[in-house]
């Protein structure tokens, strides 16, 4: 176990795990980037992930370990089952709690070492399935390292940089070849939407148990691209959990090793580059979005980007109440962290950052357009007309993409109806002219009638006195 201490974005400390063969290069690489490493063995009684209820580490790197079957009474997990390897400090519950408290975990598996039940039940919770047999590994008879595994075909050669989807940012790209020796296959279930495979096996690969199924494989655990060799889970609080299928691939031997492909070509491995990408992504150095200013105001109150301060001073910024049919401008500033600095966020043309104006269900869903850009951030904006419906609306930016931290910004505003003096006056409505004319004609007619009645002279003078009563 390895504790990491970074200067990376938002992190204070980091963690590590333990393995007898230390992966000097990887760890050197990590410590070079400013993490403070703490090595701990699960057997250490004093190991605790939490101190005073807070995380003691920012990140955990779990490496497989050899202690096969040495279960002491202390090494019993929550469920009272013997737990090969991981002690009471690393139960699935505590690891989930670590993730829930924003800690990141990079877990490495190896076919050479049995996966602790603690880990496999944690993975099962996350809907990541491991082969039922402990010794299973992935082979590919078409893409293997002819130099080191010409017989067993269990060192896979995979090209770097296959993107998951075209609209997903490519954080694990490159054009090298990754050597993946003795990998543990992972199969991702469909029920957890937070999972995303980082590296998938080629379509000719399959997983089998070399001990039981040496002769014939009838029903392999997983085949082809369903095998995920490196999988990631980004929790809703953006904590990251990465499963790396082959701990051996991180060893020094493969970091700068040479491999020979099936068709006889020699090439260098890109494992160092890939490991760097994986560690950087897991430990929040890549793909971490930061939301800066979120502003909305009436569009009629203009102000260039710099002039917003004066808008704010006037108290027109982020009002809590609007009227129906108001023109409103919404701005959001987002930056993306990349290794050591904040940079501006660029969104792929096939993707869009969207703003929802929603009450129970969205009334508008609008694309936010980048309007200005600084070296450290991009400001996206949209101007729209509020719907003709009063109520408590939210302006919501809900941007959740694989490998990017979640952006879920919600601003509640009250949208009121027209006040009694905000309607057009009666004479401004042309359809009302008929009625207005009718009213005035009636009044004039009445006055005229009264006038004529009063001033018209009675026909007979003599009876005037009697009539007057």
């Amino acid at each position, binding site marked *: 176990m390895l504790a990491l201490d970074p200067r990376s974005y938002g992190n204070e400390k980091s963690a590590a795990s333990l393995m007898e063969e230390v992966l000097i290069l990887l760890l050197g690489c990590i410590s070079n980037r400013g993490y403070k490493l703490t090595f701990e063995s699960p057997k250490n009684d004093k190991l605790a992930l939490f101190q005073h209820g807070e995380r003691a580490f920012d990140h955990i790197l779990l490496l497989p370990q050899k202690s096969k079957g040495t279960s002491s009474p202390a090494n019993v997990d929550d469920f009272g089952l013997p737990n090969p390897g991981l002690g009471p400090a690393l139960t699935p519950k505590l690891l989930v709690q670590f993730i*829930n408290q924003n800690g990141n975990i990079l877990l490495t598996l190896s076919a050479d070492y049995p996966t602790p039940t603690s880990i496999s*039940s944690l993975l099962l*919770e*996350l809907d990541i399935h491991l082969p039922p047999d402990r010794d299973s590994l992935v082979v590919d008879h078409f893409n293997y390292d002819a130099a080191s595994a010409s017989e067993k075909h269990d060192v896979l050669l995979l090209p770097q940089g296959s993107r998951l989807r075209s609209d997903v940012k490519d954080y694990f790209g490159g054009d090298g070849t990754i050597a993946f020796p003795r990998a543990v296959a992972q199969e991702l*279930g469909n029920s*957890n939407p937070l999972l995303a495979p980082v590296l998938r096996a080629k379509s000719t690969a399959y997983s089998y148990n070399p001990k039981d199924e040496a002769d014939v494989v009838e029903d392999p655990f997983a085949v082809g691209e369903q095998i995920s060799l490196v999988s990631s889970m980004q929790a809703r*609080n953006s904590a990251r959990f990465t499963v790396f299928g082959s701990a051996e691939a991180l060893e020094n031997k493969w970091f700068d090793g040479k491999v020979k492909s099936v068709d006889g070509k020699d090439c260098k491995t890109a494992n160092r580059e890939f490991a760097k990408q994986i560690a950087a992504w897991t430990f929040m150095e890549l793909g971490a979005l930061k939301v800066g200013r979120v502003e909305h105001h009436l569009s009629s109150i203009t102000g260039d980007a710099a002039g917003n301060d004066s808008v704010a001073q006037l108290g027109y910024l982020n009002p809590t109440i609007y009227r129906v049919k108001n023109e409103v401008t919404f701005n959001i500033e987002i930056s993306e962290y990349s290794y050591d600095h904040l940079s501006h966020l660029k969104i792929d043309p096939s993707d869009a950052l969207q703003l929802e104006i929603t009450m129970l269900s969205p009334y508008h869903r609008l694309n936010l357009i980048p309007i200005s850009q600084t070296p450290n951030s991009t400001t996206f904006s949209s101007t729209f007309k509020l719907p003709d419906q009063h109520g*408590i*609306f939210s302006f919501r930016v809900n941007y959740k993409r694989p490998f990017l931290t979640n952006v879920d910004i919600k601003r509640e505003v009250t949208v009121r109806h027209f006040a009694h003096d905000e309607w057009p006056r009666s004479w401004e409505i042309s359809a009302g002219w008929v009625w207005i004319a009718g009213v005035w004609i009636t009044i004039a007619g009445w006055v005229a009638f009264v006038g004529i009645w009063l001033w018209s002279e009675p026909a007979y003078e003599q009876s005037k006195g009697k009539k007057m009563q």
Partner: protein
Amino acid sequence: MAVEVLEPFLKGDTGRNTRGLLRLIILCTIAAAAVASRLFSVIRTWHPLGRVTGGTLYPGLMVTSGIIYHVLRLLSMPVDIRNICVLLAPGFSGLTAFASYLITSEMTTSPSAGLLAAVFMGITPGYISRSVAGSYDNEAIAIFLLVFTFFLWIKSVKNGSAMWGALTALFYGYMVSAWGGYVFITNLLPLHTFVLICMGRYSPRLYVSYSTWFSLGTLASMQVPFVGFLPIRSSDHMSALGVFGLLQLVAFVEFIRQQVPNKQFQTLLRGLIFVVFVVSMGVLVLLTVSGVIAPWSGRFYSLWDTGYAKIHIPIIASVSEHQPTAWPAFFFDLNLMIWLFPAGVYMCFQHLKDEHVFVVIYAVLASYFAGVMVRLMLTLTPVVCIAAALAISSILDTYLVADNPIPTETQSNGQATGDSVKSATNMIKDSLRSTRNPVLGIYSYISKASVVGAVTTYLLLFVLHCTWVTSNAYSSPSVVLASKLPDGSQHIIDDYREAYYWLRQNTPDKAKIMSWWDYGYQIGGMADRPTLVDNNTWNNTHIATVGKAMSSREEVSYPILRQHDVDYVLVVFGGLLGYSGDDINKFLWMVRISEGIWPDEINERNYFTARGEYRVDDEATPTMRNSLMYKMSYYNYNALFPAGQAQDRVRGSKLPAEGPQLSTLEEAFTSENWIIRIYKVKDLDNVGRDHASAVAFDKGNKKKKTAKRRGARVLRVE
């Protein structure tokens, strides 16, 4: 009470002024008593739709208290607006007593009748129930307006004066702005007019007063935003319009008849009136069918068919005030007046002037409505007070005379009795033997003393009853419950306030609270948090949504809660204390109301056992036991009792050994006596599981590894 005793002594030689002054003092005392008897009680926004306050509310109450507040400030009396709101209802009850004095004085020449009516109105429990201190409700001012509008109407019909008619319209407009019950006036005045016309009592007085009232009153009522164009668009108001039209026709015919004394012409005119009437009725029906005029509102139908509301508009039927009245309630609220009432109405028949016709119609309609809905007892109370006062004053005027009557025609022994005897004699003539030689007076002092004594005893008993009812039934606040301990000391159960203050101090300002609508105003006022629905039940669908969330399974409810941004859910549970007004007892109404909107998803039958019982114990149906309301009420309730002995003291049943499990909500607060339980709505699971498996994981249940797969693989597609 002093009135009857003093009246004879004042009769003889004391001047009119003294009597007038005394009457004024008595009236003031009555008003003061009416106010004072109401002071012994303790005071007691729709997310995310929002509610347009002006358009969903009768503004009269607020405007009245606002005006009083500003006037007092103008007079350099800095009174807190809250005090005004608290004392508004008692203050107006004093005015109501005065108004009933006025209207009763119009009915009879006996001055004691008015004073009696004022006393009755001042202390009758039927009115006190809605006008104690702190009951800041529309009815607080509406009953005064009702009685006073009727007084003005009587006055204007009597005088045929446009001024009184205009005043009637003015107070009618005030009434419209104050209470939805104005429809009662809107229909009662036309009915009175119609009956008078049918009785052949058309007069220019009637024409002037009705036309003035209708035109000005309709215009005034249309100024209230909540009412708007209803007076010309809804069926409830059409009778007033129809009678107005009829009155014009009748007036026209009268005018023609005076000009042209031709018998055949008159027959023609009568035919004309009939044809016009039929045609206009046809047009009315046509307009209603085509939708130009809104059909009768559901509340109206529920007045005629008591079962209508339960089926079609459960939200109305769910209110306890809208249930049919039980017989004891009449006696409880009106006491001796309930049997004096028919006597008073009978005496109106004896005179049967225009104003007596009004009282008779009012009495008939109001008694019917009061029988349909508990709440409408309020409209019955004034006419009962008037009629009872007429009856009692007539008895007292007859018997409480010291002098012996002289048996001559002109001798009067109490004017009212003399009048009644005369007119009764005229009307019934010789048809009844007993009226051939009318009794002219009471000669025996014994009979006088015994009758007067009996009446006085009744009246004293009435006062006793009113005091008892007021102190026991209507002076306890609904928020703080009081109970008596075995040793007789009082025990205060303050769970509501405890829970509301918990909400106020422990939740974010913008936390949305979902509860049944009964508690909406209280949460809004005392906890200062937005609620989904409140007591202003203007949007049935939204209330049904809350009902659906309460009565469905967690899996169905949770998306509803999320969609409405609900942070906390509040339920009232009386099982521990035996508090029967809790949510499980109201639960069927939630089911019915939501069934009205989603008949496919909610079915009332599923909440009853096969034998049709509503149960919460082992035999409760799965639908019942899986409903959110059931789970929230009984969650962790078992822990209070030894294993398997959990008891619900309201339903008197033993609960299942294993309590319900909640996965999407977590208990946040339970008050001291478990009356209020507040649950926090969980966020989505952080690592993407469903809530049930997350809870199972937290409890330490290991997830089963998927055994050998069966069937085709489910492949993952990115």
